[in-house]
Structures are given as C-alpha cells and as structure tokens.
C-alpha cells in the first residue's frame, strides 16, 4: 500500500529520534495542532529569534528590513496558496478564531440574514450567536444531510431578501466531512451574498482557490495542516473583495502614516495594528513550503491512514462506532460501547502514551448533528508523520481496553 513515505524520509530521522526519546509517544491529535513540526519550521522560528528578531515595518535599520521581508514573503506564499494575486489581501491575525471574529464582527454592522452550517466550530458559531442574541441578525443553521453536508438547494430555500453572509466550515474537525465550497461560493456570488470559509482543517490538505471557488474570504490558522507554529493565522480576501466592508476591530500602531491620528484605511495595515508574530510568520512560511512541496503525498497519506484505521478498527475493536467516512482526510471520531470517551483518552495517554482528544472538540453543533452530544467522541487525527504501525499499536490498546472492561464489568 502506498503511504507517501517520501514525506517522512527527509524529516523522519530527526523527528523519529525525538519521539523515541519520548518513550515512543504516539501523537494522534493533529486536528488540534500538528505535531511534530518539520525541522525546517523549527529552524526558521529559531533563526528569526536569534538572527533578526527586529520589529518589522517600524524602524529603518536593516534588521527591521529583514523582518519585514519575511513577513512579505509569507504574505506572498499565502496569496499563492489561496489563489489570490494581491499579497496585500493577506491579513495576519493570531489564529483562525481571531480571523473569524474580525471577518464576522467587522462585516455585521447592520441588520441582516446570515446562513451557516451544522458543522461549525465555536469560533464561528459563538460570534454569530452573539449577533443573533443581540437582535442584529437572523441566523439560519442549515442542517445538511446526515453528515452535515449542505447543498445549494438548501441555501436557496433558506435565502431571504436581506441575506448578506454565508459562513462555512470547509472540513469538520469532528468527522472530517468536507463541504462543497465551490458550488456554494458560486451561488453566493450570483446572489450577492458574502462568503466566508473557515479552512482551519482543510488548508494544506485540500486545494482552496478563492478565484476558482468563488469565495470572498478564507480564515486560516497556521498551526494545523499548514504545519506552522501556534499563534499565527489570518484572513485572505479575494482580489475582487472590497475590504472596506469590514470594519477594523482594533486600531493603533502600524508603522505607517505615523504623523496622523487617523488609522490607515488601506490593506493590510487597516487590520494589522500592533507588532506581528514574526517568528510565527517565519515558521509558517516554511510550513507552507513544506505542504506545497508534498501536497499530493499529504492528501494520499492522510486518506490512506484514515482508511487503514477505519477498516481495521471495525474488524478488531468490539463495540466501536465510527462517525467518519472512508473519505476522511485524517479526522476520525469514534465511540466504544460501554466506555466513556474521556476514560478511553485518559487510559491511552496515561498507560500507552497515545495522545488523542475526547469530548466535543469545540463544536457542540457537530456532535448534536451526529448524535453524540453531550458525551462527545474520541477523535484520532492523523498527520504526515503518523504511520500504520502506530495505528496497529493504538488498535491493540483499544482492544485491551475493551477486554478489561468486560473483565471488570466497567
């Protein structure tokens, strides 16, 4: 079976050595944040802090120029990644949550109708719900099919005269299910409705092209599938999107127009007050280069690992119920009859050094959708450094858990 070992070969040696020194740690929590990171990412963060840790765009000295240059190069890499030609349409924030807050809160100044889906993360649903509670918007959460996948016909049915915004999570962080953003984006464009896509889970795994997908705005986070450090994320606005529709949530120092007390009104400065996370940005650039180089291998590997786990677990683990499809790209939710998700993840962590995540994964809506609210599920999420051998070990451990349960009558 092909597992894209090419991905690991270059990086495997040092990464594996490190993990071995941590008692064969198995990390299956890549949807929370990818770990380990490619060495190139780590080196770039350290190099930045060690060699050119100056403030970008503020001072005239060459060290500051070097910092500004890395910021620009990362902007350009993100613009290329998301199919945007103007690098100034890339706005840095600290993560997807702050980016989504900027897009949603910045856009929703007047009354209107907003549509979203039942697989959203709290970073989308909480700000939207706040506006709904405050009587600013009418919010429709479209149910979709049994997996939460929405269709254009649903949007057509829900649309009102004052529909102004659609927010979609591209890939579920609970089940891995993927939304058809191109069809929805196209419909939104035809109907003059702004579209925001949360690509926290999909960026680096599935191609997203704002032009071809007819999407106005994507919110990304750097530390998941893009393999960058935590604390960096942002928005990418399509070339045709009028950024002036978004009101900045913060104002302050930008290093530009310093003689004025009026905040700059041009991109990206209008949204980027305060010193940027340059080490994070430098690391993100290497992460983007990494996922761009291994784009196809990453997708193949995540798909194959998911299939391998699902097929084997269904065969070997008694009482397992899996909520993700065979098409999942690395995000698998499951429950085991008679064992609580938190018990499973605790034992996996404490006794077997396997890191996974239990509960609701910041997405209560998704769990309501798949019928696992309020207990939640266990989530295994695979990254490029995981192997089938690790899956074999994890399945053995799950089996032991099941056997101990019957023995002890838990």
């Amino acid at each position, binding site marked *: 079976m092909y597992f894209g070992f090419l991905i690991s070969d270059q990086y495997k040696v040092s990464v594996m050595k490190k993990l071995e020194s941590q008692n064969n740690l198995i990390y299956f929590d890549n949807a929370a944040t990818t770990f380990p990171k490619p060495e190139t990412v780590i080196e770039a963060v350290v190099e930045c802090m060690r060699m050119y840790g100056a403030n970008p765009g503020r001072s005239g000295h060459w060290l500051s120029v070097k910092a500004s240059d890395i910021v*620009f190069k990362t902007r350009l890499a993100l613009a290329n990644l998301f199919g945007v030609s103007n690098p100034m349409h890339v706005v840095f924030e600290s993560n997807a949550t702050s980016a989504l807050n900027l897009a949603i809160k910045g856009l929703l100044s007047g009354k209107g109708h907003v549509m979203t889906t039942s697989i959203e993360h709290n970073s989308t649903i909480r700000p939207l719900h706040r506006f709904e509670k405050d009587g600013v918007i009418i919010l429709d959460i479209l149910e979709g099919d049994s997996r939460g996948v929405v269709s254009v016909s649903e949007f057509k049915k829900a649309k009102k005269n004052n529909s102004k915004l659609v927010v979609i999570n591209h890939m579920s962080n609970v089940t891995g299910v993927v939304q058809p953003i191109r069809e929805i984006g196209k419909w939104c464009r035809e109907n003059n409705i702004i579209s925001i896509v949360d690509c926290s889970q999909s960026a680096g795994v599935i191609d997203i092209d704002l032009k071809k997908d007819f999407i106005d705005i994507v919110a990304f986070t750097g530390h998941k599938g893009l393999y960058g450090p935590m604390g960096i994320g942002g928005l990418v606005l399509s070339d045709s999107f009028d950024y002036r529709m978004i009101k900045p949530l913060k104002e302050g120092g930008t290093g530009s127009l310093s003689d004025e007390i009026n905040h700059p009104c041009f991109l990206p400065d209008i949204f980027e007050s305060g010193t940027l996370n340059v080490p994070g940005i430098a690391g993100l650039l290497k992460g983007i280069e990494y996922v761009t180089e291994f784009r196809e291998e990453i997708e193949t590997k995540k798909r194959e690992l998911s299939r391998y786990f699902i097929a084997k677990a269904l065969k070997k683990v008694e009482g397992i119920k899996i909520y993700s499809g065979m098409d999942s790209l690395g995000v698998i939710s499951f429950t085991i009859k008679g064992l609580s998700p938190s018990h499973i993840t605790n034992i996996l962590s404490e006794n077997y050094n396997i890191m996974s995540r239990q509960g609701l994964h910041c997405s209560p809506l998704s769990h309501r959708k798949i019928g696992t609210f309020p207990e939640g599920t266990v989530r295994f999420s695979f990254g490029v450094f995981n192997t089938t051998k690790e899956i074999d070990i994890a399945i053995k451990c799950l089996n032991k858990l099941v056997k101990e349960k019957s023995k002890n009558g838990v």
Partner: protein
Amino acid sequence: MEFNHSLILFYSSNYTMWANNVLQDDGIICKLVAVPREISSNCGHCIKIEFALKEKAHELLTRKHVKIDRIVDI
C-alpha cells in the same frame, strides 16, 4: 538641476517590501533606505534607485498594482 537618484515612498512598509521584491525579480537594482525625516514622517524605509531607472520602476510597479505614495528625486 541634475538628479542622481530617486526615492520611491510608500504608505506602508508592506508595500515597500512588495515593491522591493517586484523590482528585484525584474532585475532592477534598488536599495532599501531609511525614509529621510525631512521627506516624510513615516517610520520605516523607502526604495532608492538610480534616477535613470525611475520611469521603468514606476511603470513596473503601476502594472503590478503596487501603490506608490510619491517619488522624490534627489
């Protein structure tokens, strides 16, 4: 009056860096220098090029939609 160089000023360092990359990619020799205080109150840098390259640089940056604040000949 004869000029030797031109300073290309931008509203923000984000554009300065963009311009620097665009010019260098096209083989136009340029240098980033601190913005002289008497010219602008902006913190940061501007691009210094030979006066003879001014028109070429201007045309290229305009074509690439890199917004320029102004050009000062020195």
